[in-house]
């Protein structure tokens, strides 16, 4: 009885401490269950979950890059049209110049890097505020997108490899499996094993240095719950067509950025600059260089987002890029990136992106008018940030 009380009070404490994160998970769960009930389970069907992943890819990628930009207290408004323009360039390279899809993708990623470099130089070397630089970028790349598609109109992309990126699935192991996608299950098992291993190792390390850790029952509960959730998603996917390529791409980007932010000097510098740029400078951090890097990374990810989006539609259109930056910024903020900079995690940003894209997807399924969708997303966005600011103030 006494022990239970201990756990109970610990749960209360944990909730109080992590209310911000928990609210995010709860919000996602509530949104998903709500749409599921409104669509007779259609929202959580294997088909729709696959769809949701494929549709969310470009937003997730943009939001990851945006998280870095927001942590260092800048903003990038141009990402939408940089993505749109990049998609158009990829389509043109493949259809009009006969580029192989992989060469085209590489060219577009390099172009994204150069765009990021150009904006980064304006911001760091010339001191033009990021808001202005990237607002100008919004004009410029929207114009370039329109110019590049002016003659042809929408370009249909027929390259199979390219279109697979946002419509295809990882192949199954040849010879095995029938209805169920075996490789997907194996990957799922590996993910869960890696997750368990890293969590247990981290906990042991913390204990070694007498840092605060949650008590064992709660730790086990968290591990089991998250593992079960991962396996549930994997099982659902395996019974449909397997893991979409988009999920693989997003996962790779996520892993890289998570690693860089958490484990490298560059990541430390990014948080340092966001927390207090003067202190960072005096600590010998190259503030200009890191800022420049962040915009370059954003440029590359914007190009990648453009590729994913074009692949999803299997065509490059003039409207590609419209409002992407809003979804990306909202995802990062809903995911707990601090409005005042210095705080943010790409793993949480992904949750934010899932919330935003679930709203889009769910409301589409329900047949909600697109204008109404903007209003709903806006309201949820502002509530999330208001909540964030309040909980931070209390700390």
């Amino acid at each position, binding site marked *: 009885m006494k022990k239970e009380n201990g756990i109970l009070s610990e749960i209360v404490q944990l909730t109080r401490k992590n209310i911000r994160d928990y609210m995010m998970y709860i919000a996602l769960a509530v949104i998903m269950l709500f749409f599921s009930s409104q669509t007779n389970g259609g929202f959580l069907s294997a088909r729709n979950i696959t769809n949701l992943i494929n549709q969310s890819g470009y937003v997730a990628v943009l939001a990851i890059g945006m998280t870095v930009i927001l942590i260092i207290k800048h903003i990038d408004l141009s990402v939408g049209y940089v993505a749109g323009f990049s998609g158009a360039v990829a389509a043109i390279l493949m259809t009009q110049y006969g580029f192989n899809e992989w060469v085209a993708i590489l060219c577009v990623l390099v172009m994204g890097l150069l765009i990021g470099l150009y904006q980064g130089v304006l911001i760091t070397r010339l001191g033009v505020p990021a808001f202005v630089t990237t607002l100008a970028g919004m004009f410029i790349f929207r114009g370039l997108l329109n110019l590049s598609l002016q003659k042809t109109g929408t370009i249909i992309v027929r390259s199979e490899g390219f279109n697979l990126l946002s419509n295809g699935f990882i192949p199954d192991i040849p010879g095995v499996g029938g209805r169920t996608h075996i490789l997907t299950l194996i990957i799922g098992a590996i993910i869960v094993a890696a997750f368990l291993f890293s969590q247990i190792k981290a906990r042991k390390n913390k204990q070694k240095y007498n840092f*605060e850790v949650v008590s064992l029952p709660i730790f086990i509960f968290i591990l089991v719950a998250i593992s079960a959730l991962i396996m549930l998603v994997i099982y659902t996917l395996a019974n449909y067509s397997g893991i979409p390529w988009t999920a693989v791409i997003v996962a790779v980007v996520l892993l890289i950025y998570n690693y860089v932010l958490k484990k490298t*000097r560059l990541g430390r510098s990014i948080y340092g600059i966001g*927390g207090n740029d*003067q*202190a960072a*400078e005096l600590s*010998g*951090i190259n503030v200009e260089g890191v800022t420049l890097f962040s915009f370059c990374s954003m440029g590359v990810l914007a190009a990648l987002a453009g590729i994913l989006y074009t692949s999803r539609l299997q065509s490059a259109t003039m409207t590609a890029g419209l409002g992407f930056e809003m979804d990306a910024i909202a995802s990062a903020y809903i995911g707990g990136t601090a409005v005042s900079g210095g705080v943010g995690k790409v793993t949480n940003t992904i949750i934010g992106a899932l919330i935003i894209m679930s709203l889009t997807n769910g409301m589409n399924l329900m047949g909600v008018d697109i204008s109404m969708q903007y209003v709903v997303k806006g309201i949820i966005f502002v509530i999330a940030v208001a909540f964030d600011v309040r909980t931070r103030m209390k700390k």
Partner: protein
Amino acid sequence: MEDYILEMQGITKEFPGVRALDDINFKVRRGEIHCLVGENGAGKSTLMKVLSGVHRYGTYTGDIIYKGEKQQFRRIADSEKKGIAIIYQELALIPELSIYENIYFGHEIVKGHAIDWNETIIQAGKMLEKVGLHVDPSLPVKKLGVGNQQLVEIAKALSKNVELLILDEPTASLNEDDSERLLRLIRELKNQGVTCIMISHKLKEIIAIADTITVLRDGKTICSLDATERQIQESEIIKYMVGREIEDIYPKRPKHEFGEVCFEIKNWTVKDPDKDRDLLSDVSINVRRGEIVGLQGLMGAGRTELAMSVFGNPTHYPIRSGEIYMDGKKTHFSKPKDAINAGLVYVSEDRKGNGLILIQDIKYNTTLANLKALTKGLSIDENAEVVAANEYKEKLNIKATSVEKRVGDLSGGNQQKVSIAKSLFAKPRVLILDEPTRGIDVGAKYEIYTLMNQLVEEGMSIIMISSELPEVLGMSDRLYIMSEGRICGELLTEEADAEKVMRLAVGTR
């Protein structure tokens, strides 16, 4: 009985860990010029903030009796309504707006719902007349020199029907002519019945103008001298300012031989970015291995500017000339990183503003300036980081439950220790400590002094910038005195005493 416009009785104000004001009694007679003097950190500005309502009623104990009534100011607007106006050292004018807009900013003259600009211009003209500034009131304020801007500030105060005017170091950034003019104006205002409290470091001015001089030290009222009865001497004020006996709060270190000169600045001249004068002129200092060199001077003497411009110049002061030598070799630091790599580290006076990253934890801050030492391949070795952070936490006796504690939640003294830990982790050979003990309690001070002794024993060289005279005298082997951007004296500690130093620092030769 005397007619007091203001009586502050038993004022005590505490900040976390420090008692800034300790049972202060302060009385101002109606219509006098009352000067408030004391070292930096003596509590002058805090006292004025209590008076004006910046530190609102309830955050201090004691009574403010103004014009015979007990007052409870909750914000500046409350005290302004009663005729108290304060003019800060950093002027609060809006450079792009015109003089008349500035004068009536925040208390505009309105007719119905709209601002009556014609009346505003006429009234502003009258106010300018009063302060003796003969310029077009529609000029933007940024076109005026600092001296005239100060007059606009006073005009603004007058436009609010001020009865008690507080000036915080009004002449600190003025040249002699402008200072002279300002002092004349203050006398003029006195004749018109305005009472004036002036904070100043310039003793000559104070003696010339004051009716009463109150000396504060360590948050206590030391004395109030009536200058109308007799002539007060500078030396008398200085004695009261520094009078505290230097007790044994400075741990002794055994005498040891100093090594070669390992860091030297020669003929360092830096232009003031905002004004047409030199911020630092022809500064030359050096420090030997194992030596603590004090850099003493009053606020605004240019000590922090010297350190920052040498330490990679992150704020981009225009450096006119000068050379830096490390171990006799001429070098140049184009950013702080270069200086750190060369073995020179600067610990900022402003630990919250640009020393620490408050939202991060102790271990993050400790290792920030030298992550290279912890990097294996691409990754930071987090185990090694914890070990290192713990080592410094122990060495500096940082009081916190673990190195994962957020720095923003620590006390001032512990924050300062983290700030020093961070710089030590960068393995410097020369350490510049800027006001290392500002705003921290005696216990933590002692620990920092002990650490400094230990560091020089190990062969490090320290330049300590400090406004606290006893600290400089107690800790340094040798000291430089700075005043108005120049080195105006170099003394061995044996031959220095408080009065000698203060005389140099306030510019009396």
